[in-house]
């Protein structure tokens, strides 16, 4: 069966070709384009599953050692920068999930972008081109043997996320009612924010890779994880730390950006501005999963650092994960936008995955990644279906009344209600997704979340003291309760009670191209957890647990099922779900929120996302803006033209006020902050270009003089 492995390079290639074909040739033919995209990802799925099959049949040898293919790409001198593909148990597990979830999302998109209907999206074909490229990026990342291909894929995804989040940032035709001016501006800001925020991470990752290469002379993962290589890295000192720790932290920096971990999580909620299938793609199978995948892939590096450093990188993974898990879950309590709740839920669940990896357990983190991909894709697509239905209801209502009502936000949960009768399939699927997310037996999320908590619990008990694993466990358990609470609230607001708006009253079920993927994904949300159920002997553990053993620093064993842990988290989950549901199912619009009654000012804090965006605004942007204004003033106001600027100053004060007001609504911490900083620097330098050639030559003469003096006499 080993010949099946030679299909591996084709897995990312098919979507890539689909992208090329659509962009170059078929972009005028919508149905053909989407068929090509769906067909290619379906082919990838088949091939990926064939490779999975080969891995399963190949036994422990293949699952641990893996298969690999080397493609010489950048030979120079004696070392070779390779481009290669590799498959092992871990990759195979990812290959089961990624193309399949992508396939479901692609099929769903056909309905969501309204193929063949009068209001079909005018950028329909391009949409499928972009998501194909996106899928190609993720698949390339998963099958990469070397850091080069990994980084290339990583960047392709960054680019696609930028294109897709900003997908609705310009109007093609005037009758595109779903894109108004505000939408255009929001989409642009969100796209740029995502691009630049994740690019901070990318720069860190790139530095990490460069350092790794300069110390080890190779970019092949397997070579790097050889015990002797890791040992060398442990002994080299860099910035007062072992090199391995520095590199691991840089790599983690990349993951923090991509996987939206605190403090770079701010871009993910805004990424909602893209079409909903994109959100599903970003949140489930691709973008954010890439960061977790990266950390999991590089785990030997983190663990090698664990052995020698005082503040090991591994701890930081766990700490950041725990903070993110709690942060996301609590913010999710106070959001009204159905997709935003899910976005914060993703942030929080990614925190769980990082927690699992930070405890040194590859399987715990990745198992949760896999289950999460299924149920979060399900939830997003379900949310898309709900929005779709409500939007439709809005049109029906508007036409019936012959009045275009006030601006209507179809994402607002408080305008929904009672949809379980109007959209039964969606409701059932959504319920399955919710139960999986919350962690109710036997849904997938229960098994995976429990494994992380059990791991933490186990490490705590093994030590006994109130150590890091204890705090991780506590954060995870509390997070589970909050998760249940916001999902209960969401279920109550969306599906129970009376319709709270005419749109919800007229909502109707989505087309079958949307509901069928939902049902399929719901089945997975129900059943997928069994692939690593303890009572079946934790099959996933045996399948992929050993992949890092060659590096001799990772020893993966399944933590036994712990009834106490499971019981505590399940009780809390059920309690949270019921509480949320009870408090919100009969919520009336305009009423004070039940949570607000209970939590008081804390609720305001949550609603404003802990003011983190505003904090960045105050701590980073304000000083920068002030500084640049200050420099500008010295230059322009106090010396050159005081009178003109008296007027300008008033204007500037006014604009400052507007800016502060604006900042409460729109945050733009890094994007404009650094731009301001560099702009301020550029503004000064620009004036050196006076347009007079003799000034330029004087600069040359002074340079000659300085260099001469410097070199001859010092």
């Amino acid at each position, binding site marked *: 069966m080993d010949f099946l492995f030679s299909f591996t390079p084709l897995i990312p290639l098919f979507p890539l070709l689909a992208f090329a074909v659509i962009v170059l040739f078929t972009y005028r033919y919508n149905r053909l384009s989407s068929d090509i995209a769906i067909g290619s990802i379906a082919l990838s799925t088949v091939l990926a599953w064939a490779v999975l099959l080969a891995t399963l049949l190949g036994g422990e040898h293949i699952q641990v050692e893996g298969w690999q293919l080397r493609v010489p790409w950048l030979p*120079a001198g004696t070392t070779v920068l390779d481009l290669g593909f590799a498959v092992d148990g871990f990759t195979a597990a990812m290959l089961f999930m990624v193309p399949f979830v992508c396939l479901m999302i692609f099929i769903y998109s056909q309905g969501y972008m309204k193929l063949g209907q009068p209001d079909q999206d005018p950028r329909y074909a391009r949409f499928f081109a972009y998501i194909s490229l996106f899928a190609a990026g993720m698949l390339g990342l998963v099958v990469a043997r070397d850091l080069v291909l990994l980084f290339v894929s990583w960047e392709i995804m960054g680019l696609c996320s930028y294109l897709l989040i900003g997908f609705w940032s*310009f109007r093609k035709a005037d009758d595109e009612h779903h894109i108004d001016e505000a939408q255009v501006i929001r989409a642009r800001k969100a796209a740029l924010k995502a691009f630049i925020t994740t690019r901070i991470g990318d720069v860190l990752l790139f530095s990490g890779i*460069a350092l790794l*290469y300069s110390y080890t002379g190779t970019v092949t993962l397997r070579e790097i994880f050889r015990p002797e290589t890791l040992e060398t890295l442990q002994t080299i000192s860099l910035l007062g730390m072992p090199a391995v720790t520095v590199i691991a932290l840089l790599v983690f920096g990349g993951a923090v950006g991509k996987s939206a971990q605190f403090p770079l999580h701010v871009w993910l909620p805004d990424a909602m501005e893209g079409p909903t299938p994109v959100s599903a793609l970003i949140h489930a199978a691709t973008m954010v999963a890439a960061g977790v995948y990266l950390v999991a892939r590089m785990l030997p590096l983190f663990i090698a650092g664990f052995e020698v450093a005082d503040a090991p990188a591994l701890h930081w993974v766990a700490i950041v994960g725990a903070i993110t898990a709690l942060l996301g879950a609590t913010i999710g309590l106070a959001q009204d936008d159905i997709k935003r709740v899910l976005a914060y839920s993703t942030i929080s669940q990614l925190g769980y995955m990082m927690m699992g990896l930070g405890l040194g357990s590859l399987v715990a983190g990745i198992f949760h990644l896999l289950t999460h991909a299924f149920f979060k894709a399900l939830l997003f697509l379900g949310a898309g279906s709900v929005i779709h239905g409500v939007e439709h209801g809005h049109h029906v209502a508007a036409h019936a009344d012959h009045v275009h009502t006030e601006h209507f936000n179809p994402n607002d949960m408080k305008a929904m209600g009672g949809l379980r009768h109007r959209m039964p399939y969606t409701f059932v699927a959504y319920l399955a997704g919710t139960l999986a997310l919350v962690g109710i037996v036997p849904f997938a999320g229960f098994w995976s979340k429990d494994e992380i908590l059990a791991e933490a619990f186990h490490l705590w008990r093994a030590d006994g003291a109130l150590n890091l694993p204890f705090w991780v466990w506590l954060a995870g358990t509390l997070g589970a309760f909050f998760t249940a609470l916001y999902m209960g609230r969401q279920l109550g607001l969306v599906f129970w009670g009376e319709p709270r708006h005419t749109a919800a009253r007229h909502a109707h079920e989505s087309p079958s191209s949307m509901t069928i993927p939902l049902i399929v994904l719901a089945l997975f949300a129900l059943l997928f957890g069994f692939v690593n159920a303890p009572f079946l002997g934790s099959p996933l553990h045996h399948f992929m647990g050993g992949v890092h053993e060659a590096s001799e620093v990772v020893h993966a064993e399944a933590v036994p099922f712990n009834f106490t842990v499971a019981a505590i988290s399940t009780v809390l989950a059920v309690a949270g779900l019921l509480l949320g549901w009870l408090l919100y199912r009969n919520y009336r619009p305009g009423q004070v929120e039940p949570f607000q009654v209970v939590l008081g000012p804390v609720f305001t804090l949550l609603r404003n996302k802990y003011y983190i965006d505003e904090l960045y605004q105050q701590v980073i942007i304000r000083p920068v803006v002030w500084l640049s204004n200050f420099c500008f003033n010295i230059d322009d106001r106090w010396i050159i033209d005081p009178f003109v600027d008296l007027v300008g100053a008033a204007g500037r004060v006014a604009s400052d006020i507007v800016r502060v007001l604006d900042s409460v609504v729109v945050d733009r911490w890094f994007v404009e902050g650094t731009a301001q900083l560099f702009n301020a620097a550029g503004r000064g330098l620009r004036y050196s*270009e006076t347009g007079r050639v003799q000034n*330029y030559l004087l600069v040359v003469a002074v340079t000659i003089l300085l260099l001469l003096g410097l070199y001859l006499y010092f």
Partner: protein
Amino acid sequence: MTLTQFLVLLLPELVLTLVALVVLGLDMLWRNGNGSRHLLPWIALAGTVALLVAAVLIWPLGSTGGAAITFTTGKDFGGDQTPMMVLDPLALFFKLFTAIVLALVLLSSGNYVRAHIRFHGEFYALILFAGLAMTLSAAATNLLMIYLSLEFLSITSYLLTGYLREDERSTEGAVKYFVYGATASAVMLYGFSLLYGATGTLDLASIAAVLTGSVIPVHWLVYPALIMVLVGLGFKIALVPFHQWAPDAYEGAPTPVTAFLSVGPKAAGFAVLMRLLLTALPGFQLDWISVLAGVAIVTMTLGNLVALWQSNVKRLLAYSSIAQAGYMLIGLVALAPEAHSWTTGLNGLLIYLFAYLFTNLGAFAVVIAVENHTGSAQLDAFAGLMRRNSFLAITMFLFLLSLIGIPPTAGFVGKLFVFGAAIQRQMIMLAVVGIVNSVISVYYYYAIMRQMFFGEAPDAPPFDEGPGLRVAVGVAALMVLMIALYAEPFIRLASDSVSLLAASF
């Protein structure tokens, strides 16, 4: 050396000269009446193809064996029997490079020339002559020859810059370019004369031999000479602080000429700089590396920061090309003496130059297309380009990605090699400044992207860019992808091209 050998070895240059003269002559013949003058660009293009073919034909001569073939003619006059130029892998690389530059510039200039330029034949001939000067300067191993070929390149560049006689900006740019360039080259010449005085020879290799064997403290002379030579070459490459002519000249020049200026003289400058520093002054490596490292840092930073403020795309790309030269310089600063590592810095410099050639000429070809149809090279002329000509918008997007250095584009491979060299040499500071700068550069490249994809252009109809431009842009885009996706042959080419220099070092 027999005359036949001599002519064979000079074949590329001879062919190019011949075609340029033919273009001049035919232009005169066809001046009155018949409409064959539209054939001129194609004849010129055929000249670049002939150059390419000739370079490939003599390729085996130059790239085999350990030593370069030198051109020695005539009898000796007490030490005058020094070669003027060589045929070595580096020279061959730049012949190839020149052929591509000329071909892309000629392909993209057809419509522009018809619309704006009065004397066609002279224009094409001047461009070919500028290419000739490039190949000569890359092959020169003698101070006299270096000075002569660089001046040749400069004079043709001044004339081309001022070619739009009716345009204020063009003439103004040419005056500034001329004044600045003539001064810089006079300073360089003074530096050359000092080098000659210290060693008594003009041959680069002999200079090195004399300097290493010298017992007298030569640094009193070599330092001033080094600094003055840097002025002249820094001017050619547009390194800060010798860059200030560039934005004005680029903005003023006819856009195809700007495209040429942003690549041709820069490449020639780098070729001469590499050869001169490594062949003649290897003993003073510590000194020139420290100067060049500082120059690289300020060049990258200043170029990028000021680019943030530009609203004219030609000017913006001028600053961008200044910054790009800063990145390239890292390759020369971080050159690694051992030949067995994957990046010796020098091969990174050549890879970067090659990637930059396609990227920048492609980007300028798009600018030319937009200018042909809107009459403006301001940023807002790019508004809504995606809807007006999606081919140009998408390829431009690719070129901008390559300029930023995002994979999978050629620019990424170039950056990988030069930054990699810096990291390998433990010049972390250089690498960090480079990386931070490439992040800054996102902002202004993004300004173009934003205009193309999101900009509102109410009454701007779709337009067609014309066959020549389409081929130029298409080839450039293809190569930008090729270099990234199938880098092996290009890296081998670059590594082979610097092998002799790196070995002599």
